[in-house]
């Protein structure tokens, strides 16, 4: 097992894409059967299905690129937290529906413009996966934006809950659009996106939707970061304990 962050940038980049989708899909899967209303139970599960499908594509490609014979499942179920490259945002707990929607919206507002750029990746496999994923991400962004507005501009209680969620999650939004060496290298090679452009789109979208939702944009204070480099919050360990249980308890079996 890799004990250190020393993946080559291209592999690291693909793991970020795959792990974001996987961990957020895993979180949304926790809602299944417990949604606030049957229609939204179904809708959240749709998003989870899309994301896990995307995770499979990214992780499969990451395994191919790595060339050590690891497939999607080995990457999903046999890495420890320090080898996961997802944003801290996506591992945050579901909380109430407002927290789930805010987390989803902040992610979608990043994910959609990111995929838009990846459509033009010089890596044809990346462009192909992005092309399929962006159709889904378009729907996700519309869904989470609508619910931001509905709940922000709904009742007094929903407004309060939505503002709390936005405030609570704000400090996890910084790292998505802040490039590090891996992002820079991926962008320069033509494989990855320009996070400067993604940030611009993210800022505009977030401002627009928060305005429509009558929500206040928190001040840019200290931002948490580290997910992309494998330094996570305590939550990820529990997510993995759950997700990887069978593969860990009964290693090397077909399921």
């Amino acid at each position, binding site marked *: 097992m890799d004990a250190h962050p020393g993946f080559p940038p291209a592999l690291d980049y693909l793991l970020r894409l795959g792990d974001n989708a996987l961990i957020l899909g895993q979180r949304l899967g926790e809602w299944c*059967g417990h949604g606030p209303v049957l229609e*939204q139970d179904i809708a959240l599960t749709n998003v*989870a299905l899309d994301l896990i499908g995307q995770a499979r594509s990214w992780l499969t490609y990451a395994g191919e690129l790595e060339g050590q014979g690891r497939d999607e*499942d080995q990457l999903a179920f046999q890495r420890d937290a320090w080898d996961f490259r997802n944003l801290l945002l996506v591992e945050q707990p579901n909380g109430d*529906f407002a927290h789930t929607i805010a987390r989803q919206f902040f992610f979608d507002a990043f994910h959609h413009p990111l995929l838009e750029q990846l459509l033009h990746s010089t890596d044809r496999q990346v462009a192909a996966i992005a092309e399929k994923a962006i159709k889904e991400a378009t729907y996700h962004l519309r869904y989470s934006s609508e619910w931001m507005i509905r709940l922000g501009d709904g*009742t007094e209680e929903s407004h309060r809950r939505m503002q709390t969620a936005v405030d609570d999650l704000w400090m996890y939004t910084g790292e998505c659009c802040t490039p590090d060496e891996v992002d820079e290298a991926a962008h320069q090679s033509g494989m990855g996106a320009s996070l400067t452009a993604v940030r611009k789109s993210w800022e505009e979208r977030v401002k627009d939707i928060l305005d429509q939702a009558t929500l206040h944009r928190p001040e840019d204070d200290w931002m948490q970061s580290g997910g992309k480099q494998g330094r996570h919050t305590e939550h990820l360990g529990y997510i993995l304990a759950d997700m990887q249980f069978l593969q860990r308890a009964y290693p090397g079996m077909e*399921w």
Partner: protein
Amino acid sequence: MSSSVALEQQFQERIDAEARIEPKDWMPDAYRKTLVRQISQHAHSEIVGMLPEGNWITRAPSLRRKLALLAKVQDEAGHGLYLYAAAETLGVERDDLLEELHEGKAKYSSIFNYPTLTWADIGAIGWLVDGAAIMNQVPLCRCSYGPYARAMVRICKEESFHQRQGYEIMLTLCRGTEVQKRMAQDALNRWWWPSLMMFGPNDADSKHTAQSMAWKIKRFTNDELRQRFVDVTVPQAEFLGLTLPDPELKWNEERGHYDFGPIDWDEFWNVVKGNGPCNKERIEARRKAYEAGAWVREAALAHAEKRRRRKEQSAQVA
């Protein structure tokens, strides 16, 4: 009085002629009540049934299995949706039906009060529970009440897919290691008898069967369907190399059916009454989801109302 007798006679004649009854048609009050009871129980079973399987979504052993399980549990939510809609055609509201569920007044399929303890339970539920559900539900596609029959056509298609998926999980386990096979056998041991109970009490003790059959809501009796299920399932278990937990199970040449041992009706009635291993948890989980979602539903209504008013105002200005 005589006119209602005449109406009832005409109604029965339509049923006998295999006509479909539609929401606006006249129907006896007892027919309507029977359908509301049956369809709402069925809808509740779908959404309560999401819980035991949902229990394994976060722990599914591969991404492919996770996707399939998520999609399956989502299908059940969809079935719940069609069925509540079918019940609503009879003049009841989804929220009222849910309230009855949350207060413990409404029934749902008792099988979902059993726990899912290992991954093999997900296979066993797909294979046996969905298998038994299909036996029960395929005849409902010809139910005399149109909206229910049409909902069942869609549901049955998906259920048969679920059943194959469940069987495939079992097959993978049975072709796997010793411990996986043990897991499969253990799940079969626990789910077999509750699956047979899914068909309901023996015909002699089933208070609704005769009338439901006359109304062509039901086409076969509980015991007929149960026998058919056993006959179909025994060779499937043999193919897996698993042993059904019934020492009395054997082929009866004369009847052309498998004989099987007595069902523990004491257990059945206790689980129905609320004494199953998970009755409290299941209802609690549903109630919690509903109550925690109240503010979301209220906000959605409030926002829609705000939009409507704004639209009106801007129309007036224009």
